[in-house]
């Protein structure tokens, strides 16, 4: 902008000062506009949240005009697409809980072990190589993991457990567990790394081994961070869609046995979306009610995690 008047020798000094001043004003206005535009971009994230909550509540509201909340929560059958539809969310919730439980059963011990190993045992070079490879696990498309669960893990499990049906929550859960290991391990590792060195040294000075230090000193000290890693792992497991839609079957099934097949909340949403349902039908609205239930589950767990963290927070 300043260069516009460079070389215009016949401008008087006064003229130059004036044009510089107008440039300054233009510049100030431009700065303001740019700042405002960037502010709007930052604000868009809040709009997304409002959009999600708004749409889920709005469409679920329409759903609950036809179905009572009491039936929704207590009925044991979910047969929306049948002739005599019944709207009990319980079978979908148990499906979701069972697959997530299996996944956490795999991911939490493994993820924690990996975190301890990477933060306390591995030297820098090993860590630099292993960590990116581990994190590639979370980059694999979930539909590929679904293929893996259905056509590799399930046959493998069937050779050990011959009675296992082709669609089961066990193999889906195990694969989801492997998938979320990087989320659990990298956050837990960060939390353990953040524990000050003098606490470690204190423990070593008392003659504790690395393992004893990690389990008895670091784990409790870093627990608030590790708890958030676990909560994130749970959110991922609950919201995982493709693996369960492919490998766990799509029949709502009220059971806590992971050896059976069952639909989860997410699998049901996929199943309905694949069919061409008219906008505004109850089945169409039911996927929003299912989505709202999913959000409530993650929200409850996040609040639980928050309270847990607050209770165990260590400040150095």
């Amino acid at each position, binding site marked *: 902008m300043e260069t516009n008047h460079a070389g215009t020798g016949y401008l008087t000094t006064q003229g130059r000062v004036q044009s510089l001043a107008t440039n300054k004003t233009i510049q100030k206005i431009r700065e303001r506009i740019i700042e405002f535009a960037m502010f709007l971009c930052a604000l868009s994230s809040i709009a997304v949240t409002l959009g999600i909550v708004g749409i889920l509540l709005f469409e679920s509201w329409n759903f609950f005009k036809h179905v009572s909340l009491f039936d929704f929560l207590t009925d044991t059958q979910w047969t929306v697409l049948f002739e005599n539809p019944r709207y009990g969310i319980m079978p979908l919730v148990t499906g979701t809980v069972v697959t997530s439980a299996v996944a956490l059963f795999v991911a939490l011990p493994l993820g924690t072990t990996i975190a301890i190993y990477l933060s306390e045992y591995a030297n820098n070079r090993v860590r630099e190589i*292993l960590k990116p490879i581990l994190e*590639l696990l979370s980059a694999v498309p979930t539909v590929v993991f679904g293929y893996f669960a259905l056509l590799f893990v399930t046959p493998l499990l069937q050779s050990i457990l011959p009675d296992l049906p082709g669609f089961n929550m066990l193999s889906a859960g195990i694969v989801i567990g492997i998938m979320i290991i990087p989320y659990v391990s990298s956050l837990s590792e960060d939390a353990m790394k953040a524990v000050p060195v003098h606490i470690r040294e204190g423990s070593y000075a008392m003659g504790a081994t690395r393992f004893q230090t990690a389990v008895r000193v670091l784990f409790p000290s870093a627990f608030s961070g590790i708890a958030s890693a676990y909560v994130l792992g749970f959110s991922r497991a609950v919201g995982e869609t493709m693996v369960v839609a492919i490998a766990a079957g799509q029949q709502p099934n009220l059971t806590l046995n992971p050896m059976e097949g069952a639909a989860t909340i997410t699998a049901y949403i996929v199943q309905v979306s694949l069919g061409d349902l008219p906008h505004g039908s109850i089945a169409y609205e039911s996927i929003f009610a299912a989505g709202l239930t999913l959000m409530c589950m993650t929200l409850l767990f996040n609040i639980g995690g928050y309270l847990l963290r607050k209770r165990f927070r260590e400040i150095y």
Partner: protein
Amino acid sequence: MDNVENKVTRNKRFDTLFAIIGLLSTLMGMITLTVLILDLATAGASRLSLNFFTSFPSRFPTQAGILSAWVGTCLIMVVTAFTAVPMGVAAGVYLEEYAPKNWLTALIEVNIANLAGVPSIVYGLMALGLFVYQLKLGQSILSAGLTLALLILPIVIVATRESIRAVPSSMREAAYALGATKWQTTRDHVLPYSMGGILTGVIIALSRAIGESAPLITIGALTFIAFLPDPPIKAEFPFISFDWLFSPFSAMPIQMFNWVSRPQQEFHLNAAAAGLVLMIMTLAMNGIAIYFRYRFRKRIKW
């Protein structure tokens, strides 16, 4: 005395044992990844041919291909990148350089952290209600691209903020000392220095978006589509057309999901081949991102 020595030996042995367990657990991820790729490759390699890339889906597994799927994925990624990158980078710059410390900024920050934990299928539901029906964009490439853009927005914002934070404040102060305005400082100094980190974050975010299937299914991706979207470049005036934005779509993960959920074994081979292509795409993108991160980290020394 003997007792204590025994105890120490036992503890030490257990410590070594745990080191081995830890290493094995860490390698588990690597082993799974290898098995996964080998499994896909052995099943899918026989289907991979030029025809596979140039054919539409078909009832006959040997003739079916991924033409509409990969074209769909590419077009969706164009929309996603053009939406998520400017918005995400702008939001990141604002939060890091401009934002005043007040409740609104705090709210935005907490909100971005929470959005990262929202299941992707919920974004799909939101897009179905909002983009497809309320805004009447239809079950189109535009809706799909926007949905995935919102999904990866938090990743882009976080990556932008992290790499901007790494630029030392002496750089900014030097620019201010020469009379540069805030925007000039940001545009000419802060952004170029943090470009490497931003680029890495953008590539990783896009590689996540490529593999997403759940939100696309929710907004109505087609699993069987035997035509391509309207071409963006035309022979006659005005040469550029945006009709493709409103075309129905399929995508790579959707195509793979369709094949894997069919009972016939023959189609599973197609699924494996599609999965292999998808894996190569995402792994290549992640590889590029890791390389960028490595190179930029090496080049800039403060």
